[in-house]
């Protein structure tokens, strides 16, 4: 059994799993570096430790946070290899089998759901409470992030290869869908808050505001948002979208200027 401090060192190292990310080996070096304290603890002999680390010096790539349960499970498996209960080849095949699935789960859950909801909440908070916005964003996001790094590593170490079943019971893809729907609702609230903020600062040049003007502007902004989102989903980049929206502004101003001169 490795010590608690060693597990803590692996936890800290897991934050640097992408430090030497390369196109060829991706997180290969990072994974070996993260697990190194545990390997040194398990194999007291330097040659055995070097050989074990070399096993991990191969191509590896998964979502950085989802590497934690794998790290924990691999540490448990290395202990079994040392005790002669398991063949070292099993570790390699275990890691390889999870690269694709854990990459996909992590990307969908963390990048595709948790980050957007934290971003929308952060921007909404910034609109209402100013500088508290970034803090709200960081706290919401990192609750999920640190949970996976910490508990994933511990569960992995406790359960070994069975951690795969544990991760399955969490139902992360289903949770991701729910989070995305909540985030869409929050985005709607944010749009409404933004419209009120703009009216309050006199950006639309209308004071006092009539109810129909409020709904007209809301209708205009939501329609523009949805139509542009269709274009973005069709593959145009956000940079191009900005230019596409900006160019009509110049045309509009030229026309207004000409009309004023004629008038």
């Amino acid at each position, binding site marked *: 059994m490795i010590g608690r401090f060693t597990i803590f060192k692996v936890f800290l190292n897991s*934050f*640097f799993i*992408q*430090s*030497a*990310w*390369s*196109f060829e080996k991706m997180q290969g*070096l*990072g994974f*070996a570096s993260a697990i*190194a304290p545990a390997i*040194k603890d398990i194999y007291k002999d330097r040659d055995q*430790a*070097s050989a074990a680390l070399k096993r991990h*010096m191969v191509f590896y790539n998964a979502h*950085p*946070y989802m590497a934690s349960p794998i790290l924990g499970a691999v540490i448990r498996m290395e202990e079994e290899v040392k005790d002669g209960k398991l063949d070292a080849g099993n570790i390699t095949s275990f890691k390889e089998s999870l690269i694709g699935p854990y990459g996909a789960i992590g990307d969908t859950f963390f*990048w*595709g759901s948790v*980050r*957007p909801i934290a*971003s*929308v909440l*952060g*921007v909404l908070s*910034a609109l209402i409470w*100013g500088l508290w916005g*970034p803090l709200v*964003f*960081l706290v919401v*996001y990192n609750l999920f*992030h640190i949970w996976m790094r910490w508990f994933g590593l511990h569960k992995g170490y406790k359960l070994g290869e069975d951690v795969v079943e544990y991760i399955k019971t969490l139902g992360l893809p289903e949770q991701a*869908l729910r989070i995305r*729907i909540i*985030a*869409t609702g929050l*985005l*709607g*609230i944010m749009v*409404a808050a933004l419209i*009120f903020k703009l009216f309050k600062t006199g950006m639309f*040049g209308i004071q006092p505001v009539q109810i129909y003007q409020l*709904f007209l502007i809301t209708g205009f902004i*939501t329609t*523009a*948002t*949805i139509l*542009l989102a269709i274009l*973005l989903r069709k593959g145009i980049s*956000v*940079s191009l*979208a*900005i230019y596409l*929206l*900006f160019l009509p*502004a*110049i045309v509009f*101003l030229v026309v207004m200027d000409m009309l*004023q001169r004629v008038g």
Partner: protein
Amino acid sequence: MKGVVYQCLLASAAGGLLSLDRTAALQIMVSRPLVASPVIGYILGDIMLGLLIGGVLELLFIGELPIGGYIPPHETMLTVVITAVSLIGQKALGRIDIAVFPNWYLVGFGSADIFFILGFAILIVIPMDIICRKADAAARVFNVRLFNTVLVGLDKGLIKAVGTNNLKGLGVFFALNLLTIFVLTLSGVLLMYILLPLLPRIVVMSLPFAVGAACVTGLSSAYSALYGSRSLTVFLVTTFFTVTLLAAVIR
């Protein structure tokens, strides 16, 4: 000029460190525009402008996912450069003479001359993403050498080589990020200093619309990133319900 270079260096150093969070270390999201921009704003003397830029860019880059080997737009570098160019450029240029603009126009943008500067910064910096991505890719190509060095070291029983070379990767990312941000920020400020006064009045007048365009694109980008089977209904219902509720409360 000395002051401009010093401020560019300050922004680059902070930006280089913040950019590490994006791939190389931590991933606690301090590299996201909503956090990075206020930090740069604080360093350069206007934290609230940083927050405004950060909010817009956060939504703009919400849907870009670093899946597998794909390198998405470098939102951290772009954020740092846009914020730095806006703030340093504003100080370098002074206030834009709004007296030349017609009255109907000033209703909306009045004395908010930062929107001209910010609009210009967005338009010139966004295409620079190609350079940011190339710098990021260069670090990822270079890091293979570190991997090979570790393999040689392990053959000699040098276990420490694993940790030290992994951390060298951080240094590679930091150096390239810092250098790229410095060059792009300085170029952006110089472009603004030289180009902005030369632009026709009508183009200068249209610059704040670039900020509006970025806002609308940001909302669309966020909606597009969250798109699903019930998105349209949820989005429309919550927007109009909140507007109605806020209108009722205010009345």
